[in-house]
């Protein structure tokens, strides 16, 4: 690898991950699981620092779908964080949620759309909404940082109160253009 990402310039100065965190707390989310993504890194740190949220790192995204089902069986509300490249991994496991009408709230940071540098990210990014929809998952978009609490709140109600599977796709534009630099060593 001759290039590394050194930082990301946020397209916005607004602290939307904190808004998402507060909304999840308002809904009593007790479990958070994730496959890491830079766009989710602040929310992941907040979750790890919160003793009331059991935070689990996954080896692959569909583990989180099954975890959310088990959490609900035991009375916990769970949320799954991933990036769009992991959505295809979840397709068969979404059958579990549909068959049992388990709530699922998943927050997906998008790749392959806004100023994408890596062509390998583009096919799954383009297919992300359809990959959810073919399994019956409702897809909402979060494009404006000011709407973070409103959109996450709507999605959480639909999931936990309406027993639906809901994915919120967080626009790559909100996460910011990835900056690359030459590795110096």
């Amino acid at each position, binding site marked *: 690898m001759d290039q590394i990402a050194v930082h990301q310039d946020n397209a916005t100065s607004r602290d939307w991950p904190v808004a998402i965190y507060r909304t999840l707390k308002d809904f009593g989310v007790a479990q958070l699981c994730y496959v890491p993504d830079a766009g989710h890194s602040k929310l992941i740190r907040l979750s790890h620092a919160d003793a009331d949220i059991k935070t689990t790192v996954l080896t692959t995204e569909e*583990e989180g779908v*099954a*975890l959310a089902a*088990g959490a*609900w069986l035991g009375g916990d509300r769970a949320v799954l964080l991933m990036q769009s490249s992991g959505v295809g991994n979840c397709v068969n*496991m979404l*059958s579990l949620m549909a*068959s049992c009408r*388990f709530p699922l709230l998943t927050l997906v940071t998008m790749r392959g759309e806004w100023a994408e540098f890596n062509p390998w990210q583009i096919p799954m990014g383009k297919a992300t909404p359809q990959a959810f929809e073919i399994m019956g998952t409702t897809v909402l978009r979060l494009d404006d940082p000011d709407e973070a609490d409103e959109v996450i709140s709507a999605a959480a109600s639909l999931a936990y109160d309406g027993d639906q599977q809901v994915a919120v796709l967080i626009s790559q534009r909100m996460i910011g253009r990835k900056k690359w630099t030459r590795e110096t060593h």
Partner: protein
Amino acid sequence: MSSATGTLDRRAVVKALLAERGELLVISGLGSSSYDVFDAGEHPGNFYLWGAMGGAAMVGLGLALAQPKRPVLVITGDGEQLMGIGSLLTIATRQPGNLSIAVLDNGHFGETGMQLSHSGLGAKLEVIASGAGIPSVSDIADMAGIERLRASLQDLRGGPRLARIRISAGEVERALPPRDGTFLKNRFRSHLGFAVK
């Protein structure tokens, strides 16, 4: 490489594990494991998977984290666990003391024509679990070992544990639990005191 199938009767194993189950909550993996758990006796604290191949251990983790004061047992087959092998690493990161995984290992994909599985071709699930960071692992080939495992299931601080149980590869009669997922979900949650909305 020789196949590593055992001699234990799967129905007898599961019946023994679920005897005097007390507060035990049970998740069963897709296929024969669900039939075995159902055959051992219906219970509202059973949740039978009829799909979600590879997901049984993770359903067990979510449940174990949500219900830390109840022992949770995942009963599944070698093929089902192999498909979700990464979940052993994920479970190890959380170290849920109340979670146990019993893998009924016949070294074959029993539901699909008895092809040899990776386990039958030499993979050792208990070694993989140990390498993943599961602190308590065992390789059980007799009913005395099953009895020791049964007693340990109630210890909420001894897990996570994984037991590879060497069962025979012979076919047994199917015993079909309910297939309606919403019914199974609501029955299970009602058993834990959660009202149906």
